């Protein structure tokens, strides 16, 4: 990265060090070009806040979330047990991730297989950093701009995290507007449950179009997301409406990183 090096758990262990927190990047965050920008924003914020963190790098593997939701419990448990072996090998205790699917799986489904960690989503980390003053935001690019937030199902309904991302957005001095279907009543982006990896079943329209239309009806300057899948689905929706120049789809980590010029 620009002015610092992202370290892996292996590097750290070789140097006899241990980070405070493991940054679980996730497959989308590692490979998807758009999601990679979010990954970088998270890393920059962690570095800026002076948090000692490391990634697994090539030792990270899919958590197994899409396999489990698609019904392939064998594949899920193979992935989970291998990942748990790696995590426990490094004596990981605390994990942050920018992917609600990884977050949910690591937090709720790994304990039954022997993986016990304190897992937080990056919205929770950001809220904590802002609340404790470890990072300070003053307006910035998004001051006074109209922003709506799309709740990721696997952060919101699946784990009852509704306030953290909103508190983060509030710090931008922006105008937060809610869609009619928000929080526990939020509408899925259409990608969960392994839908990300297949064509949708026939219907009247695609779910991401329904959701994008609801967001665009508010004429926001930006649609804030907190999940790489939602990012893909809503960006596609905005593009199909030819609105990509007026309406930005941004992860909350990008909003904060931009606001503090990282």
């Amino acid at each position, binding site marked *: 990265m620009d002015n610092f090096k992202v370290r892996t758990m292996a590097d750290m262990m070789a140097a006899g060090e241990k980070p405070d927190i493991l940054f679980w990047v996730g497959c989308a965050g590692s490979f998807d070009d758009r999601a990679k920008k979010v990954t970088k924003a998270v890393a920059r914020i962690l570095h800026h806040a002076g948090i000692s963190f490391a990634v697994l790098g090539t030792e990270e593997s899919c958590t197994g979330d899409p*396999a489990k939701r698609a019904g392939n419990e064998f594949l899920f448990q*193979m992935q989970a047990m291998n990942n748990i072996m790696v995590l426990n090998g490094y004596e990981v205790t605390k994990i942050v991730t920018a992917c609600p699917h990884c977050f949910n799986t690591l937090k*709720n489904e790994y304990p039954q297989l022997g993986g016990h960690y304190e897992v937080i989503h990056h919205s929770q980390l950001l809220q904590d950093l802002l609340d404790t003053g470890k990072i300070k935001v003053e307006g910035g690019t998004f001051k006074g701009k109209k922003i709506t937030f799309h709740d990721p199902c696997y952060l919101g309904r699946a*784990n009852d995290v509704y306030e953290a991302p909103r508190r983060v957005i509030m710090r931008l001095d922006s105008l937060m507007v809610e869609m009619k279907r928000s929080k526990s*009543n939020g509408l899925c982006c259409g990608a969960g449950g392994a839908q990300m990896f297949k064509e949708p079943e026939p*219907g009247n329209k695609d*779910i991401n179009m329904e959701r994008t239309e609801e967001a665009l009806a508010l004429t926001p300057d930006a649609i804030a997301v907190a999940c790489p899948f939602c990012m893909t689905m809503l960006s596609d929706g905005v593009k199909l409406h030819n609105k990509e120049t007026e309406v930005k789809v941004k992860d909350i980590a990008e909003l904060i990183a931009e606001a503090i010029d990282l």
Partner: protein
Amino acid sequence: MLSQILFSLFLLAGSYFFASKVREISRNIKLGRDLQINDRPADRWKVMARVALGQSKMTSRPVAAFFHLLIYVGFVIINIEVMEIIIDGIFGTHRILSFMGGFYDFLIASFEILAVGVLLACVVFLSRRNLLKLKRFWMREMTSWPRTDANLILITEIFLMSAFLIMNATDSILQSRGADHYVLAGAFPVSSLLVPLFNEMSNDGLMALERFCWWFHIIGILAFLNYVPYSKHFHILLAFPNTWYSKLEPKGSFTNMESVTNEVKMMMDPSIVPPPVAPGASPPRFGAKDVKDLSWKQLMDAYSCTECGRCTSVCPANITGKLLSPRKIMMDTRDRLEELGNGINKNGPDYEDGKSLLNDYITPEELWACTSCNACVEACPVLIDPLSIIIDMRRFMVMEQSAAPAELNGMFTKIENNGAPWQFSPADRMNWTES
């Protein structure tokens, strides 16, 4: 004396048939897989108190919640009145509880007010279903029987409440005339408004009408009691255990299949000795093909469903015109279980009809349209979990039949080979740090 005997016979028969049907439903539910649910009892009582007793999930739709509350409170409170009717019926007394004096007046008055509330709510609900034709009551799965069932319930309640009010009106006239047997008791804030309708009648006529309404009311209640277990209205009973046994873990936490855990452990470590298998026992099925593969809790869910459609109206797949309807998943599960149960009644416990919930009732297309977003689970006022059934059926299709959509099979292979659902090399995982 004859009427007392007749009454007791009705009461016995009504209770007997109700108990038999409930026993049959209980047996059907127990056809499901075994499952231990008794952890955190304090939390479970709290959930039941809040959701079933306190109706907390209803409030998301305030209009329906208000009218539903009228019917609910009316139903609960009116049982005190039913108790009095039963005692009077058996012992030939009249208004046995009237010794409570002022408190009795208060009780009767509140029953009357609630009875009007129930009447009003039923009229509103009937109009909403049949005149406004609210979308969620006219969807694909709402065929003739589910619609008739709903209307029958509402109309029956209207008749029962009307009989109760007319009974009180005629009774109060007889009381004021000092008729034999009609003790002076009760306050009649609502039925007194009906008095002018009957005031011209003779004592004999009034007594006949009062007795007719009394008998109609109680026989109607006994008949309704026996209708309930055949109807979606069974939610009035099962809402309570169903919320008590509901999932306390976060909604995103899916069940861990221990049978799979054992196999995966053996695959990863060949030194592990497989657990002994009883001779002749067939290995358990992975996932669910039919109702017997579901847990008893999932089957209780099906009997708890009142087909309100709140789940389906928030389902993103359904909203965008796809075949999936979480309500239909629950209705199909109940219908299939009833079909299997009826077969067992006729042919004994080992009965198999060669049919199954998957394919004969629920199609793979419905199941693959689910985004596992939990909106249906969140929406259900009695904490039914349609998603768990969808996932268990996906597990059967994937692990037993290898029948996942081709793209998903591709995704599985990529996870196995590259550790990611996309075609990228694990060696490239750190590339994001470079550009």
